[in-house]
């Protein structure tokens, strides 16, 4: 796949070119996410995210959290943190428990600073529903996986789609830019129609195990 190789090369180049601007890209990302009604929190380490999620759930009276997979739960130390707070955890996309999950916890593979978007790449449909159906979507994103522009984001998206396509696989990627919203009635902005009412992004240290 010469196209894939070329894309990989281009992505590497843009990454190298923007490395020295990492701090400004990061802060642009944080500002944009907040502007569209999302929340960004920097985690000192992946293991501390579990207790932060427990706090979020407790504050909202949410009883159950669910992750896309068991590895993610382990990386974020969710089991212990939620158990201590007396909350339920489902690890993995068990379909029966999705309708009752108050917080869906997923990975994000990329952040796009220009638009404050995160790229959620979940081909497994029930895991994906965890970013759609619960009242709150929590995504974890390694902080070195943030690109500056929409163009770079699309380049990366194209790369991922082509990679699946090369193996004959279908794929489903979403750029999530803040919580679900509508302005269909009198153009009044209202949050949380069909999708999550809250979007909470945890930025993990660069060598985050959750990646």
């Amino acid at each position, binding site marked *: 796949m010469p196209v894939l190789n070329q894309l990989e090369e281009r992505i590497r180049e843009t990454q190298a070119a923007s490395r020295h601007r990492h701090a400004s890209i990061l802060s642009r990302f944080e500002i944009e996410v907040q502007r569209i009604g999302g929340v960004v929190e920097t985690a000192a380490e992946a293991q501390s995210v579990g207790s932060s999620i427990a706090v979020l759930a407790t504050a909202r009276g949410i009883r159950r959290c669910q992750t896309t997979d068991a590895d993610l739960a382990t990386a974020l130390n969710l089991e212990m943190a939620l158990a201590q707070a007396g909350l339920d955890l489902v690890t993995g996309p068990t379909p029966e428990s999705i309708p009752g999950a108050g917080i869906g916890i997923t990975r994000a593979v990329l952040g796009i600073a220009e638009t404050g978007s995160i790229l959620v790449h979940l081909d497994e449909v029930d895991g994906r529903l965890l970013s759609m159906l619960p009242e709150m979507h929590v995504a974890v994103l390694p902080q070195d996986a943030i690109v500056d522009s929409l163009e770079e984001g699309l380049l990366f998206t194209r790369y991922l*789609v082509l990679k699946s*396509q090369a193996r004959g696989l279908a794929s489903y990627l979403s750029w999530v830019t803040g*919580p679900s919203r509508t302005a269909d*009635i009198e153009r009044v902005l209202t949050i949380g129609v069909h999708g999550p009412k809250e979007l909470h992004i945890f930025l993990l240290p660069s060598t985050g195990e959750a990646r």
Partner: protein
Amino acid sequence: MSRQDAFRRRAAAALANPRIRENLGRFGTAYRTARTNALAVLDYKEERARLRRMKEDAVERLPELIEQFVDAATRVGAHVYRAGTAEDACRYIGQLAKHKGVQLAIKSKSMVSEEIELNRALEQCGITPLEADLGEWIIQQAHDHPSHSVMPCVHMSKEDVAQVFSKALGREVPPDISLMVRLAREELREKFLTAGMGISGANIAVAETGTVIIVTNEGNGRLVTSVPPIHMVLLGYDKIVPTIDAAAPHLKLLAKTATGQQLTVYTTFITGKTGASRIPRPREFRGPADGEMHIVLLDNGRSAMRDDPEFKEALYCIRCASCANVCPTYRVVGGHVFGHIYTGVIGTVITPFHHGWDNAAVPQEACLLCRACFDACPVEIDLPRMIVAMRSRIVAQEEQKKETKGLRRFFLNRILPNPRLYHLAVRLGAVMQLPLTRGRTVLHKLPGPLKKLTSVRALPAVAARPLRRRVADVLPTRGRVKRSVTFFASCLIDQVYPEIGEAVIKVLNHYGVTVHYPKAQGCCGLPAYYEGRQDVARRMARDLIAVLESSPGEHIVTATPACTVTLKQYLPKLVQGDPLLEGRGRSVAGWTRDFSEYLVDVLKLKDKTLGGETAEKIPLTYHDSCSALRGLGVQEPQRHLLCMLARYELRELDDVGECCGFGGHFSADYPDVAGEVLKQKIAAIERTGARVVAVDSPGCLLQIRGGLLKRRSAIEVKHIAELIAEALD
């Protein structure tokens, strides 16, 4: 009842409903601010040029891209069905749904679905279609049609919506927006699980990977494409681009121009079907166990559009609805009147291709040709040009069927192009109006069937002596001769406002310009051109070129920007390809300047003080004519000149650029619509506190002065030439 009467009746009904106007007015104002803010982060001109190039390239390569898309989508297991017509698409989807045992199909927003009237077709197959987009759901529950392609129920107030909710849910729902949104979420959650098929549109499709890109805000798009086992995509094939990253300019501008967001909340890239959800479903669920993706690739007039050089660029549309949002007519009557199924300006332009000329012929008349849509279009689609092209085809069709209205046709074909006959006719009018005017210069009320023409504006009387009888053929400057010009007077200045013409001559003479006024000149041909009578306009252009080029002026000056646009832009186009006229037409265009432009750019009249100061400056506002602002792109010289006037203080309108509703024959054909547009203009004028409105166009002067007189307002309306002439006294 003729089509035209039916249309007028719909327009009248919309005008009689103040709520539509209130809702659209509120939306229009908020939209402008949001859009301006969103676009502030980029170079709009550069970005829209980039999008334009991307769409041009994609549409050019369409046949090749379609093949590539079908191949790529098929490779990841999607089924692609190429539908030639709406019936074809509906039949395929209905049969497939039936075959798969589907009873409920849940939908995210798709304009193609509206285009092919899919809901009706599904119902006929015994399948229940359910809209999941909040706006579309409200419209569906109300048994209504979307009046806007981005905000389907923009014409409804929250009280209207609450009534729809109450009826749909069978209990009293108060007009509380966040409550209604919550109720919709609850109501529809269960339905996502029950539906066997999810139907979505596609904003973009990607040839390289077979991907469909869907943008939504509410999140229903992702649910529709993930929860039900079957995902059905409705794809107009004009949406195909080569690669995912080629879509960058499209995604960059769509949300900014459509809703004033930087990006929509969910931008989803779907490539094939990634399996079926195993989420527990209600007992009523009917559908297959395995996941499937079907793509209906629809032509339905698109290839005809692509093959038509005059309408090809309509395929570049990204459905942001900016053209509707800034359209004065749309904002007064709404999309149920202005448009067919596709609404607004682009909707009207593409209707002939999707739904036939019969459904487009009348709504297109409601276009004022103010060009606001052209400026607002993020793909630089020349909508006004296409409206004129439509008119010319409609005229040709009517001529064939001998349907044209006799008197109008006679006037345009025989009288207007013949300056002598035309002036004779106007003079006849000047005599015939006497019983009505009884010597006054203003007509407040016209009798009988003409009453409507004076319902919101007073009309000026035809001048007792036209300009051509008041002044000589050559009007030399008294000082040192610096320059000479040929004055193209325009019908309105010659026959109705000769005092403006006298002011123009006085100002030019004052600054050392000798004015030549060839009396053989007639109308510039714009009325014929805008009515789609290019043949007549071409004849008039030929005669006009001969008159203007034989006059010795170094420049041609007009004080009527609509005529300036004709001379500079339409006239050379009309004689294009005629070896005897082409070059001469270009010369005439090149010599022509609008009055303000001539004073500032050619005579270098700048940074002076004109006239004596007054103790207190008089507040004055300036109304941009559509022709100067958007037609010629001239807005600075007028302001330069006005700022030089010592007596006045310029206060800008807060609606800068909005049309006054004149639009030539538009305000005569649709006086009610024009009147509503005028009311909004007058309200903006009154907000400035100005005592004088300056204009650069006698058409705007007629409209605005007429409206102010009707309201017995003391605000005066004057042409810039008159204001400068006064200052020179």
